[in-house]
Every structure is written in structure tokens, then in C-alpha cells.
């Protein structure tokens, strides 16, 4: 081997090296500008590898699970006691939840509330996982042929795992909630606090954009807020835990390393039609919408040159007497 080191001579590769470094820098900048540069190639590769991955997955899965739980093998007894206690408490909460679910249903009927959008779900199997320093993802065996689309939420029986960010014909790539690039609008209950949950490749994502006036507590529930219309509201995500530095992180309910079968939620909210530009400021100010401009008259000033006088809108009609008052709902409830 030592002879082999000495045989080769230095080549005059300085110029190509400089050019190649410049090409690599351009690739980084291009990748930053267009993050989906390799997406099509990745989708083709994962589609082609899907049959092989499914065959490899079976023997590896057992060893994988064993390795994943090797750190917990010495605390099985304590965990068992803790789980029994937790299970007893959860049974009590389950009864409470069933009662409250019925009550909410009655309220919705009384208030003629808009029903929650119906969601179809596609059951998919995890055929691959990638745990790289700058990327945490998994590959599912459902793609465009199964109506899986980028942006759709992926759930395991416990909670949300992540979102699909790339689909091939037969496979999908999921960006996990813990990934560095994951950003999810969430609601923290109680208090209905809005925030952005951001992954940082650690097991527990952080919370961004939280108002400084709100007070959070460990144990608060985190669900998806549905802001932006990409994800349905109310998907269970996790609970708040203190990070030991005065802040909070989200302990996820789902376990992406152990999930084998997941659901892809087909949630599509029709986009809201934006109001006409000319009407929006006037209506927001409580003014009547402007009359359409008169047809242009030759040799006259243009309509835009005319000063526009704001007109007060007619007083808003009083609410119907039969409208449901807060007290009424209390009475109904009683």
C-alpha cells in the first residue's frame, strides 16, 4: 500500500479544481433558489426502488425495531407500571371525551355550524427511512396513482408525522415534523394560542412566532391550526414540554421511527375567492361601494381624475331577535 501511495504523481489539476469548486458553489446557490431541483429524479429513483425496498424492509424491520428499543430494554418494568397508570387515567378521559363530543354535536346542530370537511384517507406502508444529519424523511408506497399529493398530512394512529413533499407514481417522500425544513401552523390549547412549530432535526420541534403576552404551560395540547388551508385543523400533534431554558418544545405523539402503516389525509379546501380590489378598502371602512365609472366621454376628463367622495354606508341592520344568545345555549345545555 505504501508503494501505491508513492507511485502516483501530482497532476496539474489546479485549473479544473477551481472550476469544479465554482460549479459546486453554483449548484448550492441554484439549489437554494430552486429547492425542487432534484425532486423529479428522486421520485423516479424511489419509484424504481420501491419493489426492492419492500423486499428488503421485511427482514430489516425486526432488527430495526429491536435496535430502536435497545435503549429502553432496561426500564421495561418501570415503563409498564407507568403505562398502566396512564392507561387508567386515559380511560377516564375517554369517557369525558365521549360526553363532550356528544355535547359539541348538539351545539353544532343548534348553531347550524358549518360541518367539518370530509376527508378521505389513503393507507400506506413505510418502505424506507432516511435519517441524515440535515434531513429526516420517510418513503411511503403510495404515490400519485393512489391520489397522494404534495402537502397532504401523514398520520400514524397517535398523531401527525409529517407532510408529503414529493410524490412519484408509486411512492411518496414525507418530510417529518422534526426535519429542519418543517414548518407547521399550530394551535396550543387551552387558550387557542397560535404558533408555528418548527423542526430542528431534534426529536422535539420548537415553537416560533408565539406572542409574548401569552403564558404557556407544560402539558398543553398542540394541534394543527389549519391556517393557510393546507392542513386540516385539529390534527393531534403533541404536548408542550419545558426545554429547561425557559422555553417550550413539542413532544410529538407520533413515533416516526416505529410507524409501519400510516394514513395520508386527502384534505383539499377550495381556495377563497379574493374580494374585488376596488371594494375591499371601502367596505372595510364601512363605506358604500363606489358606483361603476361612467363610460369615457371624448374630450372630457378621465374618471380617475375626478375626486372620489367617500359616502357613508347605510346603518347595518340590527341582528334578528331570534338570534341565539350565549345564555340560550347554556339553557339548552342544562
Amino acid at each position, binding site marked *: 500500500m505504501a508503494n*501505491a501511495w508513492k507511485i502516483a504523481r501530482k497532476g496539474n489539476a489546479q485549473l479544473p479544481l477551481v472550476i469544479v469548486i465554482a460549479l459546486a458553489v453554483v449548484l*448550492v446557490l441554484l439549489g437554494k433558489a430552486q429547492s425542487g431541483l432534484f425532486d423529479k429524479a*428522486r421520485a423516479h429513483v424511489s419509484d424504481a426502488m420501491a419493489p426492492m425496498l419492500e423486499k428488503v424492509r421485511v427482514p430489516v424491520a425486526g432488527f*430495526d425495531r429491536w435496535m430502536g428499543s435497545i435503549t429502553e430494554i432496561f426500564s421495561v418494568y418501570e415503563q409498564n407500571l407507568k403505562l398502566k397508570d396512564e392507561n387508567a387515567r386515559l380511560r377516564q378521559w375517554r369517557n369525558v371525551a365521549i360526553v363532550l363530543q356528544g355535547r359539541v354535536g348538539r351545539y353544532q346542530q343548534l348553531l347550524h355550524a358549518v360541518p367539518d370537511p370530509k376527508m378521505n384517507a389513503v393507507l400506506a406502508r413505510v418502505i*424506507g427511512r432516511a435519517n441524515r444529519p440535515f434531513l429526516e424523511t420517510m418513503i411511503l408506497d403510495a404515490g400519485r396513482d393512489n391520489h397522494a399529493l404534495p402537502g397532504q398530512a401523514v398520520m400514524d394512529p397517535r398523531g401527525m408525522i409529517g407532510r408529503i413533499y414529493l410524490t412519484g407514481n408509486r411512492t411518496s417522500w414525507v418530510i417529518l415534523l422534526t426535519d429542519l425544513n418543517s414548518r407547521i401552523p399550530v394551535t396550543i390549547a387551552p387558550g387557542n394560542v397560535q404558533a408555528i412549530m418548527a423542526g430542528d432535526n431534534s426529536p422535539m420541534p420548537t415553537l416560533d412566532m408565539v406572542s409574548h403576552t401569552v403564558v404557556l404551560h407544560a402539558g398543553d395540547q398542540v394541534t394543527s391550526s389549519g391556517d393557510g388551508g393546507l392542513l386540516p385543523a385539529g390534527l393531534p400533534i403533541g404536548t408542550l414540554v419545558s426545554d429547561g431554558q425557559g422555553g417550550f418544545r413539542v413532544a410529538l405523539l407520533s413515533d416516526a421511527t416505529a410507524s409501519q402503516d400510516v394514513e395520508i389525509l386527502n384534505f383539499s379546501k377550495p381556495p377563497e375567492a379574493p374580494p374585488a380590489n376596488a371594494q375591499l378598502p371601502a367596505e372595510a371602512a364601512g363605506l358604500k361601494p363606489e358606483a361603476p365609472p361612467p363610460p369615457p366621454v371624448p374630450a372630457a376628463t378621465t374618471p380617475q381624475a375626478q375626486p372620489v367622495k367617500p359616502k357613508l354606508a347605510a346603518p347595518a341592520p340590527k341582528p334578528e331577535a331570534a338570534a341565539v344568545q350565549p345564555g340560550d345555549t347554556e339553557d339548552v345545555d342544562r
Partner: protein
Amino acid sequence: MASLERAGSLPRFRFLIVLTPLLCGLICAFLTNIPVSVLGGVVPPPLLALVPIYFWCLVRPDLMSPAAALAIGFAEDALSGGPPGVWTLSFVLTYALVARYRDSFAGLSGVAAVVGFAAASSFACAMAYAIVAGLALLTPGAHLPPLGPSVSELAMTVVFYAPTVLVVSWLHHKLVGASRGDI
């Protein structure tokens, strides 16, 4: 397996032999990025593709050119699903470092050779972290990536260096050969 001399005498295999380091790097990139975790996600996979780059950059830099390092890094990026260009630039910069201090690295043997590779792979991981951190700083509200997974990947890469370099060295002696004049 044909020996070096016999392989070198066959012109129709010459093209394949010249491409052996590149193909070896691409295969290593593919093996690294098979999305099946055999360690339960406890540690990230090693950077196997760095081993052929390091080995042939020292032994036969005429076969492992900067363009080959670029292609291997490109494959690593394309297959890993990470931000494009990170490993490409990282591998090329590592190649430049190893080529610059080639005499120092090539003189190492035994445990010192592993230490030399550990230094090169530390540089590669540090470059990759710096690039990703730099990209994160350009994004409003983004977080710096944690250092732990990069350190784990570095450790795994160093651990897997010895078995990987054995295979690479065997391929080198059987297919490529030590002497430049053979091809």
C-alpha cells in the same frame, strides 16, 4: 478475476477500468442512501462515498479527478434528498484539501492512516454543516442544525473506513493497478 496486467492489456476494458474509482464512489453513494435503516435510526449512515475519493485521490489522482469528486458529491446530494449542492461542494473541498496535503496524507499507515481519513472526513462534515448553517441563516426564522447528528455521521464514517478501504483497495489492486502506465 483478471489481474492488473491482463486487464490493462485489453483495450475494450480500459474505459471501464478508468471509470472504476468513479463507479465505486457512485455505488458507495447509492449504498449509503438506501432508505432502509438497520440501526433503528439511532445513528445516521456513514459517508461511504468519501472513502473512494480519499483513497484514489492519494493513490491515483489521475483517475479520481476533481470532476469525479463533483459527480460523486452530486450523486450523494441527489440520492440523499437533502439540500442540493451541500455534499457536492463538501466533497470537492475535501478533495482539494487532500490533494493539497497529499504527501502528508500518503505517508500515513496503520492507525495513522485512519487518523488521516478522520481528519479529512471531519473537514467534509464541517464543510457540510457550515454550508447548511449558512443556508439556514439566509432563511428568515430558520434554526441552525444541531451539531450532534453531524458528529454521529462523522463517527460512523470513521468506523466504517477500515472495512470499506479494504474493499476499495482490493478493487484497486485487481482492476486498476498501482502503476499509471498500466492504463
